């Protein structure tokens, strides 16, 4: 590769290159996380082993989990989404190519920061869910957890950026004739996944922000001795963590839903049910998190209700499994590598799902949670499920991405080694759990069979390691000498196969007409078309411009973040202790004055927009200047209030009221400041005459954001200033 083309990769905003960068980065971290896993398995090969020190073991399993989830599975799936989604809907690129590049670069930055902790005094050793108070400064005094929090925030921001982009692209850039009812299932599932990302990641961000404040500014959110609650960390974490399971599973479901039909030479069975059950899973996943906390002692009622809702997830998941199998039924099946991985996915994911049901049976959870049975369950979902789905996707779309097929024989070796290695490693772990082995132990007593089963598991892990080597060699060799793929090597039916392999930078010369769910089938079988689902369209339907859709999506995510912070405020202040502070410290009357300034600024901005829409540039410039001034008045007012509080000795760590107050209003103030900068940019553009050509999307997007920031303040004002003192 010449220097020029290397630079082109670094500077690229092309969704295909960014997709490949995501996938390659994920592959690198996959190797790192895999080596960490091998080190862990070596340590556990026999009782009382001394291969790793306890500290090293604990750091490695923390890094293994964090890496595999945040640096491997999510980026790999988002990478495939990035590469494929625009192609599958017949678009030229993502809606926001530059945002796409930004989202990607958060990934190597976050990964670098996380791994830099090894050099900065030790990696985090608190497990991937970083339970407080173990992750508090008192019990984890090195900087590992600090690097972890910063990395998680960066990676979360990158994921939200990617999700906003995927949602906007799906909503606004579909080819003429492709309604949302007939998008390929991979697109549908990436879309739903992205919605889950923007709803769930903010819970993690809020949690991590509170932990940072605890660690760096000595607040007491999660420290019981300061009145904080160790359980709130868990609630917030799993409010993210359980949807996260489906964020990782749904795209893999999508891949399977593309692969199985093509290799069974049949359309997917029950498209509508596969699609709608995805929504049911996504929505249910938002309301079941407390099943990760059955052992905590939340009380009988909450355990029962969460058991019920967790059981229910089995229903839409079962619907999916049945539809995939029914797609195989009556097909003309070609057992190529992609289908091999898809079928293994089907069976292994069923194992993971069934052991999941046993965890919803609360008494079983009370025995088996946090044992190796759980480790087995989780790996059957994440590895046997997600990763096998990803492998199916790699073999299926590699020809599209590179123009060459992966070698089929090597693919079969890779498949069988992976299946054998995976099941050997993890199936016996079910038994280790039943035998009483807790997870996350660096060594274990020499009890009957414990050593033998652990040794089997370690052997399996090495077979897995070998399988990865086979995959790497296959990729390496096939890239150079693989069979030339042609446009559509699998005779598939979705739009990405209607262009060259690899596709040109602009993706399509001409997008084929789309009337059904399988446009390329219709093209090849004009006498036997699929049921027509959309009327013939020649012009794209009028839809809202991407800027507005993107901003609205982003606002939903921001709203979730503030919602979590406000929940934390209520949680920490419904006690006389916090309430008295709110009552004595705040001056609602004075705050009402700068509140009015902020509310008025929404009105002036609205007037400005109206003026712009009517072509009155001068009035627009005036109104935007007034808006800016009012925004500044608000910030100055809030600054005055902070100074006043500091004067009274109320600082961020003086009480839980103060901690929550400064956190909520501080983040809101930050958003106001960002809004002001955006308004300032608009003002400069307005003075430069940029809006004369009627390109006002940006104005409407910024204005939407500004109204949102105002709306948040209304909630903050009512809750903290008006209700807070009476809590």
């Amino acid at each position, binding site marked *: 590769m010449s220097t020029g083309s290397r630079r082109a990769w670094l500077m690229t905003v092309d969704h295909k290159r960014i997709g490949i960068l995501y996938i390659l980065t994920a592959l690198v971290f996959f190797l790192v996380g895999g080596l960490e896993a091998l080190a862990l398995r070596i340590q556990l090969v026999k009782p009382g082993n001394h291969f790793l020190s306890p500290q090293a073991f604990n750091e490695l399993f923390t890094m293994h989990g964090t890496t595999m989830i945040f640096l491997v599975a999510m980026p790999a799936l988002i990478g495939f989404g990035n590469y494929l989604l625009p192609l599958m809907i017949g678009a030229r690129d993502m809606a926001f190519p530059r945002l796409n590049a930004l989202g990607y670069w958060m990934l190597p930055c976050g990964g670098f920061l996380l791994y830099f902790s090894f050099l900065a005094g030790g990696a985090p050793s608190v497990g991937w869910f970083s339970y407080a108070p173990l992750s508090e400064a008192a019990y984890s005094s090195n900087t590992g957890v600090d690097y972890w929090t910063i990395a998680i925030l960066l990676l979360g921001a990158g994921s939200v950026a990617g999700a906003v982009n995927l949602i906007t692209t799906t909503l606004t850039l579909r080819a003429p004739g492709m309604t949302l009812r007939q998008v390929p299932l991979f697109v549908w599932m990436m879309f739903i996944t992205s919605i889950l990302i923007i709803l769930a990641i903010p819970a993690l961000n809020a949690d991590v922000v509170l932990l940072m404040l605890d660690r760096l500014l000595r607040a007491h959110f999660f420290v019981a001795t300061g009145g904080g609650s160790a359980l709130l960390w868990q609630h917030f974490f799993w409010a993210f963590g359980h949807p996260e399971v489906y964020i990782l599973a749904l795209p893999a479901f999508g891949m399977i839903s593309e692969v199985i039909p093509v290799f069974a030479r049949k359309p997917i069975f029950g498209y509508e049910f596969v699609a709608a059950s995805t929504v049911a899973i996504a929505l*249910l996943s938002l309301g079941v998190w407390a099943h990760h906390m059955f052992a905590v002692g939340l009380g009988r*009622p909450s355990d029962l209700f969460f058991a019920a*809702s967790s059981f229910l997830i089995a229903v839409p998941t079962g619907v999916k499994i049945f539809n995939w199998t029914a797609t195989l039924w009556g097909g003309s099946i070609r057992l190529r590598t992609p289908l091999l991985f898809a079928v293994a996915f089907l069976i292994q994911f069923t194992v993971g799902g069934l052991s999941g049901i046993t965890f919803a049976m609360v008494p079983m959870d009370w025995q088996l949670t946090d044992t190796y049975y759980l480790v087995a369950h989780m790996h059957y979902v994440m590895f046997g499920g997600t990763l096998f789905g990803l492998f199916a996707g790699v073999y299926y779309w590699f020809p599209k991405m590179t123009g060459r097929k992966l070698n089929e024989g090597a693919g079969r070796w890779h498949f069988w080694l992976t299946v054998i290695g995976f099941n050997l490693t993890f199936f016996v772990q079910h038994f280790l759990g039943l035998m009483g082995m807790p997870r996350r132990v660096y060594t274990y007593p020499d009890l009957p069979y414990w050593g033998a089963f652990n040794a089997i598991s370690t052997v399996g892990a090495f077979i897995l390691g070998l399988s990865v080597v086979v995959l790497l060699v296959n990729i390496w060799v096939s890239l150079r000498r693989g069979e030339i793929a042609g446009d559509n090597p699998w005779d598939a039916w979705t739009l990405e196969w209607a262009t060259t392999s690899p596709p040109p930078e602009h993706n399509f010369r001409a997008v084929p007409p789309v009337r059904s769910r399988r446009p390329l089938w219709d093209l090849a079988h004009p006498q036997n078309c699929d049921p*027509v689902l959309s009327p013939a369209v020649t012009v794209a339907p009028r839809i809202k411009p991407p800027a507005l859709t993107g901003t609205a999506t982003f606002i939903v995510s921001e709203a979730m973040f503030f919602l979590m912070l406000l929940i934390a405020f209520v949680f920490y202040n419904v006690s006389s202790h916090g309430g008295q502070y709110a009552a004595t410290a705040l001056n609602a009357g004075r705050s009402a004055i700068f509140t009015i300034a902020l509310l008025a600024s929404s009105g002036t901005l609205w007037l400005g927009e109206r003026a712009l829409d009517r072509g009155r540039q001068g009035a627009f410039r005036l109104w935007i200047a007034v808006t800016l001034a009012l925004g500044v008045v608000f910030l100055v007012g809030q600054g005055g209030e902070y100074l006043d509080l500091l004067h009274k000795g109320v600082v961020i760590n003086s009480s839980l009221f103060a901690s929550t107050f400064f956190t909520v209003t501080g983040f809101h103030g930050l958003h106001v400041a960002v809004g002001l900068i955006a308004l300032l940019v608009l003002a400069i553009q307005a003075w430069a005459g940029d809006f004369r050509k009627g390109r006002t999307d940006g104005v409407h997007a910024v204005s939407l954001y500004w109204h949102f920031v105002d709306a948040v303040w209304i909630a903050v004002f009512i809750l903290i200033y008006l209700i807070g003192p009476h809590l």
Partner: protein
Amino acid sequence: MSESRPLRFGYLAGAAALLAVALLPPLSTLAHGILFSAHMLQHLLLLLGVPAFALLGFPPTSARRSISPVLGWAAGAAGMWVWHVPLFCNAAVRSAGIQSLQTVSLLGFGALFWWPLIGAGSERRLAPLAGVTYLFAGCVSCTLQGILLTFSPVEICSAFLNPADPGPVLPWLSSHWGFTPAADQQIGGLIMWVPACLVYLGAIMAQFVRWYGSAGARALS
């Protein structure tokens, strides 16, 4: 609302049955100052159950006007929140008149909430995906309240603390299940949170049935 007459009568009968369950003993007795959780169940039946079935039983016309979804959503949220302000909640337990007002207002709020989805004429209803968003937003409001009730250390409705006439159920529950007022409020909150969300989820799935069903051609054979 449905095209077929028997189905419509079925819905109306369902509405009547749910109304009867909500307003007759044993639920009404328990909901009146004995069990907060029973009150919550009654609340949900009146707000989400009865109006939905009643509207489904309306004769079909395509012309009936819709209302603004913002208004509908606000009515749904008001139905959830207003009567759980401690002042109003206690007043409804103590005064029969206010309780009747509560019952009527819940039915009204519920009807307003469901109106954009099933009340309005078939041509004027919210589009299916807009309906999904509408219902999801409704679910967020009710989840928040559920979470608040479940985890709040404070009694939301103190009138349930010391019932004047506890009847036979409460002593039995406390002796056999270790039932406490705190557990009662938790269950109330969880009812509002989990089963109520399942109602929304079911309605969301119904929107998908409508959406896929209205495609140019039915893909199902």
